[in-house]
């Protein structure tokens, strides 16, 4: 099915939810409200004509300074049966960056959602195990947000680094891996 037709069908089924349909280089993105994301994904996954059985990718995007909705969660869906693709984008406001999880529709969303939480601070409600995944558990801030600095202030270091340094000093005392080797 042509992606624009899928977008039309989605619009018919959820007229209140679909905000915008855009096409670029043959790829169609449907912008939706976040509240009924689970129903929309369930519909796309189950409807026999559409059957988006494969979640290619799930990620977040931060549009800092955009009025109303700062964050987007992007679902890149693909159908292995019909070989068509569509992109669904859910809008999230800055003061409440949370959305329902889709892990019960696609199990593969689990780690993608964890990563999006890790990098953007977007909370996935109902996620079975929402922890940081790539960064240390005590990391502060969400690095892929646009207001997260690329370089820290002078002399800034991750607080876990203290521990690593102590370990190294301890090793040196026992002359393991130090400059001087025991003779």
């Amino acid at each position, binding site marked *: 099915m042509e992606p624009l037709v899928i977008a039309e069908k989605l619009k018919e089924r959820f007229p209140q939810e679909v905000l915008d349909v855009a096409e670029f280089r043959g790829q169609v993105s449907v912008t939706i409200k976040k509240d009924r994301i689970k129903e929309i994904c369930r519909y796309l996954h189950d409807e026999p004509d559409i059957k988006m059985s494969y979640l290619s*990718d799930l990620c977040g995007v931060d549009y800092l300074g955009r009025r109303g909705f700062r964050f987007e969660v992007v679902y890149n869906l693909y159908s*292995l049966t019909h070989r068509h*693709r569509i992109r669904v984008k859910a809008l999230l406001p800055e003061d409440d960056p949370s959305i329902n999880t889709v892990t019960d529709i696609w199990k593969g969303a689990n780690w993608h959602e964890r990563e999006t939480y890790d990098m953007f601070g977007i909370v996935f409600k109902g996620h079975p195990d929402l922890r940081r995944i790539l960064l240390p558990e005590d990391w502060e801030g969400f690095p892929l947000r646009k207001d*997260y600095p690329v370089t820290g202030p002078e002399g800034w270091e991750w607080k876990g680094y203290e521990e690593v340094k102590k370990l190294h000093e301890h090793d040196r005392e026992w002359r393991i891996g130090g400059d001087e080797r025991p003779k």
Partner: protein
Amino acid sequence: MKDLNNKLNISNISSQKARIATRELTINMGPQHPATHGVLRLVLEIDGETIVRCTPYVGYLHRGVEKHTEQLNYLQIIPHTDRLDYISAMANNIGYCIAVERLFGIEVPERAQYIRTIVAEMTRILSHLLWLATHALDIGAMTVFLYCFREREKLQQLLERLCGARLTVSYPRIGGVKKDVDAQWLEGLYAFTEEFPMRIEQYEALIDKNRIWLRRTKGVGIISPEEAINMGLSGPVIRGSGIPYDVRRFMPYGVYDKVRWEVPTGKNGDVYDRYRVRMEEFRQSNSIIRQCIEKIPSGPIMADAPKFILPPKDTVLTNMEQLIHHFVLITKGPQTAPEGEIYVATEAPKGELGFYIVSDGTGKPYRLRIRPPSFVHISALPKLCEGSLVADVIANIGSIDIVMGECDR
């Protein structure tokens, strides 16, 4: 004798055994472990030899590539994609270049398409050779390792002759490739492809009927087709479960629709089937390379789009306008890009490698998301390991073929 027995309490052992309380044991595996293929850490909760729960911890190689790319222009990102899946750098470069070309609307000349397909398949063979070598080594077949590295060396020498690098190649460019291939190089590669099928038979002779190999791989780490789709697995892992999902076939790029090849699939979705799929892919890749060498047309290797692509060197030296383009691109990078967003998937040796680019019209990507196959595959590791034996963890990790540079980015 009775005294001794009483002392050692031998006769009581069997009755004692029933009274000993068993408990689950938590053991840590990695991040520094030779069989985890990088800095992967697993926390295993075991009951005797059986794994009750397996929790992977990733992120030890996180370098913030996605954040970093937001500070760079489109041309500067290519070397960073090398360092994702460093075993198959060429496939990452090509995936990124195709995504950017689709965004810019650049048409790549046919000769460059052929060259890209050839080098991508070379990379697939290289990657699978390393996979076979280490996977067999983990399970205990040492000889295969040495055999595989013999062929890897030949291919890497060819890559070195082509672009000067063996591992982090950065050979493709946006709009084409860096350097043209010559007839001598193609002949060298063709000679390799003539010899290689015999080599594959040698590897198979070593392990295909090996009873230890079969016992360690058959029926281990089974994943059903429905689950494989639901979990978003791709590449040889999903094909091992019997789903013929190959991006090269489903969404052709390069010249994959102009050559004849097949998508090998397995039946049972166990470690052995994934091994068989990759062994067949050796043959298919070999055949694709041969067909490409036979069919390769002559012509330019770079597209003509002066706003994004460096002009040919000889025109830079004679033409004022080209000199200005060259100067601007080198010092500042591309100044504009079409506004929009694009998701492009390519079939890297490990699976579906996707690039999702959001462009805001400037010369730098607003957001560049990399969809790494290894990341998704590791998330399926608990499913593969739970309920199996501790020794099978090694076989499972080997069979999903992960690279942590790509998983952690």
